[in-house]
């Protein structure tokens, strides 16, 4: 079967100022669906990760001149490894100051050694892995950990560090 995609560049119309009632009803239903999705996502989050044990990992890129991230891997004892492979669009967003919420997990209270591997390429296009381990203490409060990769202009390379929020 032959399909064609309708080319919509033909004419551009302006929508009517007065939307029919049905359209308004549909918009209201869509808003209700989006709000319900939000509620369900929150419920799921609470089911999966009780507040007391919740730990959220973030990834940020400051600069991005000396390092382009391709993937991040976070692991710790008693924690299922968290992986993420970055798309070009995501890297662009990171360069614009966005912070990637890599994932959420559960950690018991106490001290934990977190192992972080950030794979990427340097300014020459050569593969580079920023690998480090840091110790964090989990209390009864939710923990936010930010893996931050920053350009070091003097050394002409990027460094990774873990910030605890």
């Amino acid at each position, binding site marked *: 079967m032959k399909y064609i995609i309708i080319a919509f560049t033909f004419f551009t119309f302006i929508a009517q100022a007065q939307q029919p009632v*049905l359209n308004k009803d549909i918009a209201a239903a869509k808003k209700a669906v*989006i709000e319900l999705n939000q509620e369900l996502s929150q419920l799921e989050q609470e089911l999966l990760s009780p507040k*007391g044990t919740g730990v959220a990992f973030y990834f940020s890129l400051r600069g991005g001149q000396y390092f382009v991230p391709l993937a991040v891997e976070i692991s710790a004892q008693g924690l299922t490894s968290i992986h993420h492979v970055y798309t070009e669009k*995501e890297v662009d967003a990171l360069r*614009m*100051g966005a912070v990637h919420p890599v994932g959420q997990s559960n950690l018991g209270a106490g001290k934990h050694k977190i192992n972080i591997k950030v794979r990427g390429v340097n300014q020459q296009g050569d593969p580079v892995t920023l690998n480090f381990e840091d110790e964090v203490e989990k209390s009864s409060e939710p923990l936010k950990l930010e893996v931050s990769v920053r350009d070091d202009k003097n050394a002409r390379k990027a460094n990774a560090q873990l910030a605890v929020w």
Partner: protein
Amino acid sequence: MKLFSLLFVSIILSVSAMAEDTAWPLLPDLAEQLHKNTVEDLQIGSFYFYYLNQDYQGAYNHLTDLRTNKQIKSAVLDVLETTLLLALGIEGKALSLAQGIEQTSDSVPAQAWLYLARRWQVIGNWPLAEQAAKNAYESKTRPLEFIDAQEALHILVHCSVELEDTRSANNYFSMMAERGKWTDYARYNLLVGSIAGYASIYEVNRHVEAAEYFFGESEQSLALKDRIYLLGGIYMMEEGRFRNAEVFFQQVRQDSPFEAPALLEYGWAKLEQSRFEGAIQPWRVLQTKYESWHPAVIESILAVPHTMERMQATTQALYSYEAVEKRLLTMLSELNQQQSVSSIEYWLEQWLNEQQGEWGWRRHDQVIDQENPMSRNLMSFLASSSVRTQLNELYDLKRIQQDLNSQLAQLSYWQETAHSRQQYLSSVSGDSRLQALTKRYQALTSVIEDLEQQWESEQKSALAFATQDQKIQIERVKKAVPLIKGLKENNATDVDLAAYMERWRRARGVLVWQMLEERPQRQRLANNDMWQLRQQLALLETQLNHSQMALAASVTSWQGFVARIDESKQKIENLQQSISQLEQRLQQQIVANVQSDLQKQELKLTHYLAEARLALARLYDDHLQQKIITASVGGEL
């Protein structure tokens, strides 16, 4: 005889060029607020990540977290929410929120105004669009970049044209750059305004010539130029300037979306100048290149025999009209069959099955099956934006229903998990186990307290930290004292007491010496052991506290979930019901619209058929009259 298709009517509408993602320009402003190393940066940055990667639902979910942070200014959150709601297509709420920003915030960035102007423009609220664009252009809070300022001026020109304020439109246009994408659009809108405002031929000509000179070579500019030539040509035709019109139609590029109407009109322009052969040629090209159901093609198949008739090629015209009649009858019969509700509903179902993607912003482009006769007949109908919107809405509703079904199933799984989790928690009797552990901890603490006391008293003793052997030796030395004392009291002269006493003194001295020599090392070891014991006790206490916390969290975290899940399930079911009703209403509306379009097509074809039959009757009648005249002249001779 001149017939205009729907396509030509639609071209009179003004152009409104919209950026692909209208929300984009707002965000760089917000980016300036990031990188201040606060937890707020982390939260706004995360929102930003979801938004830039078009995960609008994720961004919307994240917004709840942002709202709980009192450090983030509500104006910033309002801007973020407006951006998001517009991206999600929930315009009503977004616009009311945007109006709030407009009224209360003095520091709204110029780009935010531009963004609002775009949305008002899309909705067709010209006075508000004009006001917002003016604010965007004049705002001193982070003024617009050059390209954005040009867009603001284009919106101002467009709004003025729509509000029939030609003077303002020209005034805003004079503030624009000589060349550029937005100038091109503004020029087109001015042309539309001129035509709608009954401008002179000179004025229209001036706009078309300016487009020819100033427009760039980008595909966008060339397409706009084609459109201007077509519009200018139709205007010239209406004014009876056929030669000028012909020149404009000739300028429309081959294979451009405007080629078909341009070819049709080009033929008419030739015909109006009695250049018959020249008129037939573009129509032949049109019929060869385009589908038989294209409105321009349908009109041209009737135009060809009409031209032949005017050329006095009676026999050829007759055959052509007969072929046209046959063709129109087939098309009418097909149209007639397609008009039933059941066939439209069947077509709609097929169309919906062919669409892909999720609903809303994640919906894929519409696809149509060109081989399907109904889709083919509805090609022009499907090109209308209002129809596309309706079809998209119907697809969205169907898709939402599917999503809600899967969410309902997922919630049932969660409910089961919550039940089993609660049962497990009660079966492990964590509370009593923890109480027993706490008692053991307390017993251990008292033992350690005793040890502490012992250790402290040892510190004060002169012979502290003795080994087991040394303790035995100390006891022996202690026991020797009463024995020597007894011998002395009994005057045991046969025993050399002095030698015994000396030996005792020496043995005691060596023992004390040894113990004092080893004491620092032993004291250090004992201190270390004590310190480690204290540390272990502290760890034990922490672990106990954590276990208590974990138990409390595990119990509380699963409490009330079953009720919450039930509530969510109820909400989903209610939503499903209302969406199902909406779906039904929308489907009925679409079916009625399709039916109406097919009826219009039928009416148009019937009109063409009548024209063809009338021409046939006329030609036969002429031929008959001629025969009669010839026969009567022959009889007379």
